[in-house]
């Protein structure tokens, strides 16, 4: 097992995404300190390079959190986010890296429980997989 804390980066849209995180905090729900959030105007702004760069710079797992697809503040932003996450997952598989290191999630601002769920899910993934390269050549 790796001898360091997992590192997880989450790109959150500043509409429902961040609001759901705020509500979780106001409801007294805690999340793991290994998670660093990056605020983006919309998940449609998140590009493949952002996700891959985060991994390259040492994140063990990366996620994108946007509005629910039918309730997206910018209408189709979270659909774009989902497509990009899927593309990055396919690139990771092609180079022999576990695609589950990158995930897309959706929440509405009223879903106070959702962020804790996402956080513990990603912490588990990061802990199981460890840093990239730590298992001697991936799968």
């Amino acid at each position: 097992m790796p001898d360091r804390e997992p590192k997880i980066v989450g790109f959150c849209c500043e509409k429902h995404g961040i609001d759901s995180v705020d509500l979780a905090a106001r409801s007294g729900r805690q999340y793991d300190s290994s998670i660093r959030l990056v605020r983006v105007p919309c998940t449609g702004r998140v590009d493949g390079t952002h996700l891959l760069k985060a991994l390259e710079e040492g994140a063990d797992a990366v996620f994108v959190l946007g509005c629910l697809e039918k309730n997206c503040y910018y209408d189709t932003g979270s659909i774009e986010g989902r497509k990009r996450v899927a593309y990055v997952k396919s690139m990771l598989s092609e180079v022999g890296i576990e695609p589950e290191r990158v995930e897309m999630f959706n929440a509405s601002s009223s879903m106070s429980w959702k962020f804790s769920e996402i956080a513990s899910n990603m912490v588990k993934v990061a802990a199981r997989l460890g840093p990239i390269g730590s298992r001697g050549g991936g799968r």
Partner: protein
Amino acid sequence: MIIAERKPLGEIAMMVAPHEKVTVIGCRSCVAICLAGGEKEVDTLVSAMKLKSMNEGRTQYFDGFVLERQCEKEWVKEVEDKILAADVVLSMSCSLGAQTIGDLYPEKIVVPGLNTAMFGVPEEQGVWSEKCLGCGDCIIHTTGGICPIARCAKSMLNGPCGGSSNGHCEVNLEIECAWYAIYERLKLQDRLDLMDTVRPPKEWSTSHSGGRRVIVREDAKLTPHQIRGKEASL
């Protein structure tokens, strides 16, 4: 424009595997429009390749950037230093860019990151289709502006064949029958008489079948005197 598609990352990784310093060069023209080799594609490819090396615990250096047009010597020469410093150049342009670099720096190994697929057009976001085969003797004025050479699976000059079915091609029912489209277009233009005009066999020597083609414009070429003058001013 030229339409290309990124090669599978495993194939790219195999081509660059023997080398340590890899310079990835994209192009801002056609291949950026077809989302194969522009700035973003170069960035994501470089990241994915770095992650692969990290994962395998090997040291390989990747550096990536894009040129305005990789098929023009002037743009390529501007990054000569970076090309010469690389162990291998991974070209993310169409093969014309890759070959321009290779012809300018013959001692360098240049490998293709893209499969150059066709002359085509963007039909809608994320969809590109072939429209011309570069036959060197265009005849689309006789076919309602639709190219039967590129768009008919059999490149028939007088169609449709017996396999045309409900507007689709028998070779692939997902694809429209070019001759059905030509008929519909000519009907719309009230020029159906062209369907009855028999097109004689085409002169194929102007196409690639006649060997590699080179086009020369004497009026545009520089004279030896002009070349000497240009060199002196550099």
